[in-house]
């Protein structure tokens, strides 16, 4: 229940009620309403977020480029399974307005929160607005890849931003991806950090198609050397010139199997000093209904965060199997009697992992690749040329329908990637592109869509086909 007094209380109440009314109206008019209530409420009372956040027992934040939504949703699921009521901005609206909207929805008209814990996915560019207000108890940083560069210019900007914000948050416990030198750089000044990482075992299938960020040592500027790469710039790196190297992970994933399920062994290390090896380690086998190597990092991050928050390994292992991914994260449908998977794509590294995963399927495939260039997608679509579309020059690919406002750019990219022109169809509109897909006689369908089109595809596929729950 609200503890502050006087004038601010009045504005708090007006803001909360305005926000809740906006959420109700959004529902009535079938508007998705993942940000609008927050926008309105913040207009009334700009400090609303800090007041709402202060009331929770625990605030956990997840930021980084890829895997935020999956990691945050999975963590919220694990916390709920352990008996803690948890709210999260599960639809991926991760700017300040989306965070506020999720919390407003968690509060009753009587000014009481329903949940004990808030798990907040926060956009890399919004950490400056959100973190000082919510003061997270635990912060997970997943990775830094090239993403929507026209919105935030360079990666360095985001990394420096997080570094600056963390200076003001000495109490926040960090949980960092040890395998990403850029993440480690962002958190290196902080005293309370633990690390998660993946042991070497993944064979790099694309070779030269890979994008590697941050190849320079943040301390001395020399090129980093690697013992192995997992994907992108994630791997076991060290600086040949100074002492900067991958920290020893407190949470390590090994023996990864990616077949019908994703399976690996989680080692939770107990160690004496920062750079010591584990003196002992608890191990547990984890298994999830997900695919794709990149999801190992997401599951690992969520399991590490849950462990840090006191969830038992038994609970983590048993509830992982019940988890179903969110919209556009390998969402599954049946369309024209064939399996159809919908994936969100937003940057080269994520796209490469999606392509590798879909190519492992044995049947013939037909694809829709839909790219928009609205604010939510990133206005600049040049990143398509950093992705390894060369993989699609493959006999198992029967046809690719290029769609979205940038259907032409996708078509040109595919042509230069070596996809034969007779396998490329241009269909900018959403519904006709799905119909075009349905005309293809292939064993499986795959739809890869950028942010502003993925919800449309999800909605239409529910109507034109059916969702697999």
């Amino acid at each position, binding site marked *: 229940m609200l503890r502050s007094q006087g004038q601010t209380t009045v504005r708090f109440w007006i803001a909360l009620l305005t926000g809740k009314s906006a959420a109700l109206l959004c529902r009535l008019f079938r508007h998705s309403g993942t940000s609008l209530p927050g926008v309105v409420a913040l207009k009334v009372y700009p400090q609303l977020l800090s007041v709402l956040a202060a009331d929770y027992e625990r605030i956990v934040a997840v930021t980084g480029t890829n895997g935020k939504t999956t990691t945050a949703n999975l963590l919220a699921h694990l916390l709920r399974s352990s008996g803690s009521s948890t709210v999260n901005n599960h639809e991926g609206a991760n700017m300040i307005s989306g965070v506020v909207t999720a919390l407003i929805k968690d509060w009753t008209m009587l000014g009481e929160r329903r949940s004990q814990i808030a798990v907040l996915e926060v956009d890399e560019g919004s950490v400056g607005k959100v973190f000082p207000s919510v003061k997270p108890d635990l912060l997970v940083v997943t990775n830094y890849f*090239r993403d929507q*560069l*026209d919105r935030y*210019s*360079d*990666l*360095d900007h985001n990394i420096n931003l997080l570094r600056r914000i963390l200076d003001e948050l000495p109490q926040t416990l960090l949980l960092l991806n040890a395998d990403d030198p850029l993440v480690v750089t962002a958190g290196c000044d902080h005293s309370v950090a633990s690390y998660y990482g993946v042991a070497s075992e993944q064979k790099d299938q694309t070779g030269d198609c890979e*994008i590697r960020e941050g*190849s320079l040592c943040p301390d001395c*500027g020399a*090129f980093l050397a690697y013992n192995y790469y997992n994907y992108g710039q994630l791997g076991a790196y060290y600086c040949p010139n100074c002492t900067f190297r991958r920290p020893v992970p407190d949470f390590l994933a090994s023996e990864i199997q990616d077949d019908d399920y994703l399976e690996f062994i989680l080692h939770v290390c107990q160690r004496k000093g920062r750079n010591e090896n584990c003196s002992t380690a608890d191990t547990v086998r984890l298994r999830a209904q997900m695919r794709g190597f990149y999801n190992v990092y997401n599951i690992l991050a969520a399991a590490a965060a849950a462990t840090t928050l006191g969830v038992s390994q038994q609970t983590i292992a048993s509830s992982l199997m019940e988890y179903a991914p969110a919209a556009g994260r390998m969402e599954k449908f049946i369309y024209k009697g064939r399996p159809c998977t919908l994936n969100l794509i937003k940057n080269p590294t994520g796209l490469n992992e999606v392509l590798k995963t879909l190519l492992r399927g044995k049947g013939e495939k037909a694809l829709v690749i839909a790219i928009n260039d*609205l604010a939510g997608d990133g*206005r*600049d*679509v*040049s*990143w*398509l*040329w*950093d992705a390894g579309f060369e993989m699609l020059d493959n006999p198992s690919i029967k046809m690719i329908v290029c769609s979205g*406002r940038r*259907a*032409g*750019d996708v*078509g*040109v*990219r595919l*042509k*230069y990637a070596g996809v034969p*022109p007779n396998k*490329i169809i*241009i269909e900018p509109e959403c519904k006709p592109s799905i119909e075009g897909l349905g005309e293809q006689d292939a064993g499986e369908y795959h739809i890869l869509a950028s942010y502003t089109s993925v919800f449309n595809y999800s909605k239409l596929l529910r109507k034109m086909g059916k969702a697999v729950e």
Partner: protein
Amino acid sequence: MRIKVCHLYPDLFNLYGDQGNLLIFCRRAQWRGIQVEVDMVSFGETICLTGYDFVFLGGGAESNLSLMSKELQEKGRFIVEAVEQGTVLLAIGLGFQVLGRFIKTQDGAVLPGAGVFDLYIETGMDRLVGDILLETAVDLQEEMKKTSVVRETPLATLVGFENHAGRTFLGKEARPLGRVLKGQGNNRDDLSEGARYKNAFGSYLHGPLLAKNPHLADILLSRAILRQGGGKLTPLNDELEIYAHNVIKNRLVGGYNN
């Protein structure tokens, strides 16, 4: 026919998909039966560029600017030498900026450039960001008509996406790539975009530049093969590229770009 291509600093200048330009250049050569040999020259390596027919330098993170300026104080003369001897060069974004005379940064420092182009850069407070449409320089348009054997209606425009804090001011020796019809260009004020000197081309356009501008790719290619005694290029089917070009062009000319 065989041409030699150099990808300069692929390790530092690899942002915004610009290396797609190199792929496009190479494919358009190979589709015409021209063999291409590509070398990569990394940061800190010794370079001699006069033996190359085409050199490409892409965009990079601005945090690498001072590092790059230092490297070019030593190595810039090799690039100048090659351009003076007729090597074809394409430089994009930051790669374009470091080839000017100097760069004035936000904090007032002046970093020397390689001096390929007669221009200087001032780093502005805000970034110039968005889709951009140029009317191609008239002499280039004339050259484009002659480049291919047949092209019924050659594109008279160039499209791309700009994203830069630097403002470029051209000197007398540098000619622009085109005139800004929509967007910001070199410095938002004088309607110029990019720079040209001999066979060297510089531009802020990402997309990458050559993806939706196949006619510009062919100018670079035909100038490169000319060095090896090559003649006219055989025409290619550019339907997809021209479609993608026109989608952006029509959107910008039509004035709606939500």
